[in-house]
């Protein structure tokens, strides 16, 4: 089997797995943020898995890019893989992929504890909201560029991923409204608890 073909297969598979991991990380993060984590697992399990899946998304994204560069038939070089809008072929499709990659890099880098401690919470939260943009650009890239985008199993899987991504967003928004309406009360006295300003509010 030629090396270019193997690189092409690996590029496709790592891209699909990266997309799955990205959606999984989004789902875990949204469920944690919505406090919709159930009782069987502790909330920090969901947060840890959210971070872990995000890191794995970045790893598989970089593998995907590396394999795309090694695929000599794809016409994607280092410049095209890292500089948006420089590809000769399928320019916009590759551009969305490059943008998604940079967004994932920023998201993961700013989520590292040492970096996060140095960033004001509001700014960090604004940066972290770009995960939605990353998912959207990832979807555009996979639909426009994907070698398997025309196959029925890919379209079905894409629809399932969209549903998986949208459902926790709904839960998150509902939980946000509920939290704003119902103040946290003491379990002993029933009196509203005083929460320091800026803490726990998004």
């Amino acid at each position, binding site marked *: 089997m030629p090396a270019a073909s193997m690189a092409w297969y690996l590029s496709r*598979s790592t891209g699909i*797995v990266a997309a*799955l991991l990205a959606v999984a990380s989004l789902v875990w993060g949204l469920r944690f943020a919505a406090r919709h984590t159930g009782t069987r697992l*502790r909330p920090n399990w969901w947060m840890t898995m959210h971070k872990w899946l995000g890191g*794995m998304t970045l790893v598989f994204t970089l593998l995907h890019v590396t394999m795309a560069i090694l695929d000599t038939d794809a016409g994607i070089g280092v410049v095209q893989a890292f500089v948006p809008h420089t590809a000769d072929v399928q320019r916009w499709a590759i551009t969305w992929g490059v943008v998604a990659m940079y967004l994932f890099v920023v998201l993961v880098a700013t989520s590292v504890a040492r970096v996060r401690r140095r960033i004001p919470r509001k700014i960090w939260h604004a940066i972290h909201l770009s995960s939605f943009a990353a998912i959207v650009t990832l979807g555009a890239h996979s639909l426009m*560029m994907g070698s398997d985008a025309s196959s029925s199993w890919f379209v079905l899987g894409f629809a399932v991923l969209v549903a998986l991504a949208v459902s926790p967003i709904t839960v998150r928004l509902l939980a946000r409204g509920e939290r704003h309406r*119902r103040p946290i009360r003491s379990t002993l006295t029933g009196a509203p608890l005083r929460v320091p300003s800026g803490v726990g509010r998004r």
Partner: protein
Amino acid sequence: MSWPPPLDPLIHGRARPATPPSTGPTDPAAPPAARAGARRKPVAVAGRVTSVALSIAATGGLTWSFAHADASGGPAPRAALPPPPRRATTTTTTTTAPVTTEPAAPDVVDSGTTPDVAATEPSSSTVAATQAPPALTGTFTGDPVQTRYGPVQVQVTYANGTITKASAVVYPTRSRRDLAINRRAIPILQAETLTAQSAQIDTVSGATYTTYGYIDSLQSAIDAAHAH
């Protein structure tokens, strides 16, 4: 979901943890976490290991299925190519009479998306040659050459011994990737053919397999043209 909800670990993390009243690092009765100082117990180890294993397995499985599908012909069967027209059929009436070249095999698939480059004469499936025998005129179709991604077949048009048109009548269009690569590469190959007037053309970067198939089919078309 129970109410009030559990404490947000982020909030919890900001709160200064209460100092254990009696246990210290040297206390043999202290729990292991306290003896270890700031080292915390890893969380979600099983989940992390599972996610890594699933990701690697998914990557391997997808790679294998792609290679298997490619080896077995993929969604677009490679055998769909019609029987190869070995050479363009030519009929010569006399040695000095005009040479009439029959059109290329009608069952050859022409996708219709290949732009023609620098065609200086109107495209015609039948070109009548009216010049002396040395001046080659006609349309000749090369052999279909099977590449890894599908067949490539080239058709060349001669006018007075010069290649005036070279078009890929068949090329891989199995996937979007094939289309993207070949729509970029084939015009370059056509332009190179018209410039070189032979099959001695450069490889187009990013379309290696198509280039090799194009060159082989072009060479067979040129051989067919010079064969009569």
